[in-house]
């Protein structure tokens, strides 16, 4: 009966949309901080691109995919080197560590606080397994902003080889694949990136053994979020599909790096997804029935206090037992044969 209650339903949907907007605002980093992070990233890209042995530089990581969660303390950039300038790179042995040391000296020469020729921003550098971590703030500050710079060699199939210090090897990677997949999904459905950020935030409160890597959520979102519809339907679809998909393991979508988090608590996360799917399903039904308050309360149960919802309705003392979440609907006696 769409004609009967079309208008109030429209008004209710506005209420749910506004609540999602408010949640989104609480999750998204404010634009000034995002711009600052992008500016710092671009400074590194420019400086390194001027080096004679560098072919290209690009951002990877969630900032480059616009799926970052706040607060942004780190950005990732990839520096693609000319193999002719470093013929020994790319094969197993000490060259993996050498490549990282090479970046460190380049960064210090170009950007160090005391003697940088391009800018004076880097206070300290650290060698990590795959990257050089460059501190722009006091390294002891837990909120210190860092730029992770990674060396890479481009392969004939357009993927990359990156050094791995601990194993003294160069390993395949394809960060651009994920960047492109995310951009493609976003082109199809403008809610995609904002919802990925919501889901990354959601994961932080999930009861699982250990933690859940943010990349796990991002890849599941790519597989399970639809490419059309509103946010409520999209999330309902996501939670339902992800509850089964996570049992299959979450793997590098480019097919190069294997399982993203082998120690992931698949069962725990699956159970959390299934519970959220139930609540989302009930919330969608409540909204369709015109009970916006109930829908908002159910979404709040999924996303927590940052999702605005009215206080729970006072329980009627005349009723015995707890009221059902949604009052059961009678079945129409209209048999079909």
């Amino acid at each position: 009966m769409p004609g009967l209650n079309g208008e109030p339903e429209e008004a209710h949907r506005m209420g749910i949309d506004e609540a999602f907007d408010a949640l989104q605002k609480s999750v998204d980093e404010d634009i000034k901080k995002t711009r600052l992070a992008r500016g710092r990233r671009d400074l590194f890209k420019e400086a390194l691109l001027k080096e004679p042995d560098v072919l290209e530089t690009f951002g990877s990581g969630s900032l480059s995919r616009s799926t970052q969660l706040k607060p942004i303390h780190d950005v990732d950039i990839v520096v693609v080197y000319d193999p002719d300038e470093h013929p020994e790179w790319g094969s197993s042995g000490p060259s993996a560590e050498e490549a990282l040391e090479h970046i460190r000296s380049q960064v210090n020469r170009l950007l160090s606080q005391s003697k940088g020729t391009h800018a004076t921003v880097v206070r300290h550098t650290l060698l990590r397994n795959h990257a050089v971590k460059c501190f722009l703030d006091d390294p002891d500050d837990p909120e210190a902003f860092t730029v992770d710079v990674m060396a890479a060699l481009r392969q004939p199939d357009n993927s990359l080889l990156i050094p791995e210090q601990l194993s003294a090897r160069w390993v395949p990677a394809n960060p651009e694949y994920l960047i492109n997949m995310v951009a493609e999904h976003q082109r199809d459905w403008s809610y995609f990136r904002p919802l990925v950020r919501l889901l990354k935030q959601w994961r932080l409160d999930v009861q699982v053994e250990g933690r859940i890597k943010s990349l796990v959520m991002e890849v599941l979102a790519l597989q399970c979020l639809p490419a059309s519809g509103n946010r409520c339907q999209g999330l309902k679809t996501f939670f339902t599909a992800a509850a089964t998909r996570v049992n299959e393991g979450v793997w590098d979508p480019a097919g190069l790096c294997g399982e993203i988090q082998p120690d992931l608590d698949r069962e725990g996360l699956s159970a959390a997804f299934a519970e959220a799917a139930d609540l989302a399903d009930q919330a969608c039904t409540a909204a369709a029935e015109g009970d916006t308050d109930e829908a908002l309360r159910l979404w709040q149960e999924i996303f927590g206090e940052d999702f605005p919802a009215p206080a729970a309705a006072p329980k009627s003392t005349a009723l015995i037992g707890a009221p059902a979440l949604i009052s059961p609907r009678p079945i129409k006696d209209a048999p079909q044969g």
Partner: protein
Amino acid sequence: MLILIPQDAATVLRASGAWGRLSLRISQPDDLAVVGGISEGGGSIISVDPPPPAPRLLASCDSRPTGYWYRAKNELHALWHLLRVRRDTAMKLDVFKDAVPNGFKTPGDGGYVALTHAPGVKDAYPESRLPDLVAWHVTRAGFQPLEMSAEPETTGIRQLDHHWPVQELQNAHIMLVGAGSIGSATAHALAGYGIGHLTLVDPDRLQWHNLVRHTSSRRHIGRTKVTALAEELTQLRPDTAVTPLALDVIEHADQIRALLMDTHLVVCTADGVAARRVTGHLARRADRTAILACVLQYGALGEIIRLHPWRRHGCLTCRRHSLTEAGSLDPEPALDAGYGTGTRHRPMTAVGPDLHLVAHLAAKTAAATLLEHAGHPDQRLPGEHALIGLRRQPGWAAPFDLGRTAELRWLPATPPRPGCPTCEAP
């Protein structure tokens, strides 16, 4: 009389001008006619039958130029609706004539069948659902509406587009191992759900004794069951592409293994412990979910098992072991035989519709598994292992102790056993 207007005929009528002649194939005993040819004005009648090999409707009846069609005013179609409600009410011929601006033919003694096309009727009566093509019997005394049925532009599973996730299932590819009594009904049900691609695997031929339970008819006796099924499904459910493979899942495991790469889900309705175990093993190695359907206790109990290739979900053998250890299942002698061996199946003792009931539950389980995976919360199943009472007998051990016929019980998965050659990666 009911007048049938196939889609090609409707398309020609809608695209034509003011009037023309019709040829009809009429079956008097059926009180039925089908439009077979149409002319534009006084020109020659052109056939609107589908091109061969598609079968024509009422093919055994001769096509005769026995009617006319006219472009009509919208009001005439509203009148068609009113007169049908009143039943057996004729109207004066002048009314019809006035509603047909061009080409009207005065009827002879026997009268004729007329079709009218009112192109503007949907705009003129937007909520009425009046058809733009209707049929009449026109005589000297007057005219009366005739029943008519025009083939819709959308046929097949896409008619359900807004009520059922057609596209997801049209993209799905299911392998069905076993095309016997349960398998044949499962194939029909999977096609009914709108599965786009179905690969049928079974080496057996259809024999006389199969007819009592199989969905295929007597005319397929002696052919392989998969060929017969593929042919029938292609006729009945053209939205499902069927690949028949007369292969044995044990003997031709390598071929099956390769085919699993293009398969989303495996349904096994084969009888015999070995074939079921091999199917489950191959599916798990290929990271595919398998759904196994069978009857136990001589057809007294139906069973569906869903085997996900997941860490905490054991394979068929592991699940059987847990039931055997609990004392609820009496293992087949073949259960301890080596991989790929086992006894031949027992003769089937259940009645067809009981087997088809299990088959339809297996197909539902398969469709629901695909749809849950695609994010449809309304298709989540209550468990991984279903038992359904077909001919309940007292005294069965739990969980087989169903109280009544048609009782349905869902059980959870059981974990893999340590050292299981299927569950533990090689």
